[in-house]
């Protein structure tokens, strides 16, 4: 793999540190007028998700990580693995629980997800920012109550639980922001 110098550091750059792939979250150029320059970064370990601070002396080089983000279509879950397909090449890949993380709550048939590949294997799965789901179970709706701002839990097929306004009924389709897990709107 190629190497990156500290002057190429920027948010999103994928580098190898301590044998694990990392993504640079932020990079700050530190230099006293008459002194040594440093790159103070915050990096996310793409395997564990942990974010740590890491400081480099300017001019150091770091190995690039073979990490790419691809858009893949979710196919099905076989009980152990989640299967995805590259919509262009039809190539299929299986992601384990560690890679899928909490994204499984939002995985529905044919959803286009961002799959991060490390050395060609799924490392992380990000659900689409917005999904539409049918409510499997919730308390009966309070008809006409669109003003009080109260909420109640609603259960989805995938196991996700979303707080919805009181007027929403079982069987209704709603739009959800997967980044916050919050209800956005009703889908007619």
């Amino acid at each position: 793999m190629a190497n990156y110098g500290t002057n190429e550091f920027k948010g999103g750059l994928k580098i190898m540190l301590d044998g694990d792939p990392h993504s640079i979250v932020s990079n700050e150029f530190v230099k006293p007028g008459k002194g040594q320059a440093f790159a103070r970064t915050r990096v996310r370990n793409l395997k564990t998700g942990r974010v740590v601070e890491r400081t480099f002396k300017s001019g150091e080089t770091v190995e690039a990580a073979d990490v790419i983000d691809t858009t893949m279509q979710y196919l099905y879950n076989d009980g152990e693995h989640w299967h995805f397909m590259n919509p262009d090449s039809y190539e299929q890949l299986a992601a384990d629980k560690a890679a899928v993380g909490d994204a499984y709550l939002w995985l529905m048939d044919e959803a286009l997800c961002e799959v991060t590949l490390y050395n060609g294997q799924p490392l992380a799965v990000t659900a689409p920012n917005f999904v539409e789901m049918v409510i499997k179970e919730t308390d009966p709706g309070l008809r006409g109550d669109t003003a009080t701002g109260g909420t109640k839990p609603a259960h989805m097929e995938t196991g996700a639980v979303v707080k919805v306004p009181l007027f929403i009924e079982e069987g209704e389709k709603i739009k959800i922001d997967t980044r916050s897990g919050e209800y956005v709107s009703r889908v007619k």
Partner: protein
Amino acid sequence: MDTTHWLPGATLDTLRQAARLRQSVRQWMLQQGILEVFTPALSAAGATDPHVASLRTRQGKYLQTSPEFPMKRLLAAHALELADGTSTRVQPDLYQIATVFRAEESGRYHNSEFSLLEWYRIGRDHHALMQDLENLLRHIWDTAELAWPGIESRRYGVEVRRRLGVWPEQATTNDIARYFASAGRSYPESIGGDVDAALDLFIDEFVLPEFAGDAFTLLIDYPVSQCALARLGSDEEGRAVARRFELYFGRLELANGFHELCDATIQRSRFEADLRKRDHLAAERISMDENLLQAMAAGLPDCAGIALGLERLHMVLGQHAHIREVMSFDEQRA
């Protein structure tokens, strides 16, 4: 295609503020009788400072990283011109607002091209210069009708010893690396045995964050190993220190001042040490400025000098978060 790229980073109001800042500086310099001078941005000699990278034109000239050397040549020349005894005129102090260039410096507080306000006071030391600096800052704050934020001073050696238990000149990279480890902070192994690089990071990581966040701080009594172009002296304890200081606002470095070294022989040996360090760091080979050495041999008057970054001072004045906000076109847009 980004269709906003042609737009400036600074608003019209901010550019007015930049103009007022320079007017305010020039007004104070005029009141003080300090003469404005103009020296070339292109020079045959580059900076030998190990941590300053010069930009070079294709014709082989260097863009100045600071107007220090030509201004010192003027100081020496003026002393010579007025030394024949026939003149009763007093040699003037000098100032300049210079555009300077530093390669590979870019970030929230760095732009490869920026403005240095540099001035020299003859017959004064760095203590008098710190008072001078405070007077200028008070004038600028008064003119801008802002409340004076206050200024305090801290001693480099004391700040280091308070944490490491030893003076900076006694500290090893192992001591410093251990301190980082015990504080749970990241320390680059590539620092190797470079104690000054380790101290630079130590100061940034542990000392600067404890400076008053909304006031000026003068950091004084730099270790001898970081004397740069300052002469040496001793502190309250009789310890050898450089007669050098830096001005900060919060943790932002604004200015660097010296009681200037005037001895050409010592200057030459410091240049040689710089060049050895540059070789060690695999930095570009740069020849030392013989014109400066000749001027110093002819006689640089006893003086104190300081360089202050005007864009950063503007950031402090206007509470700007990024240097691009105070520049018409920063290096990304230039």
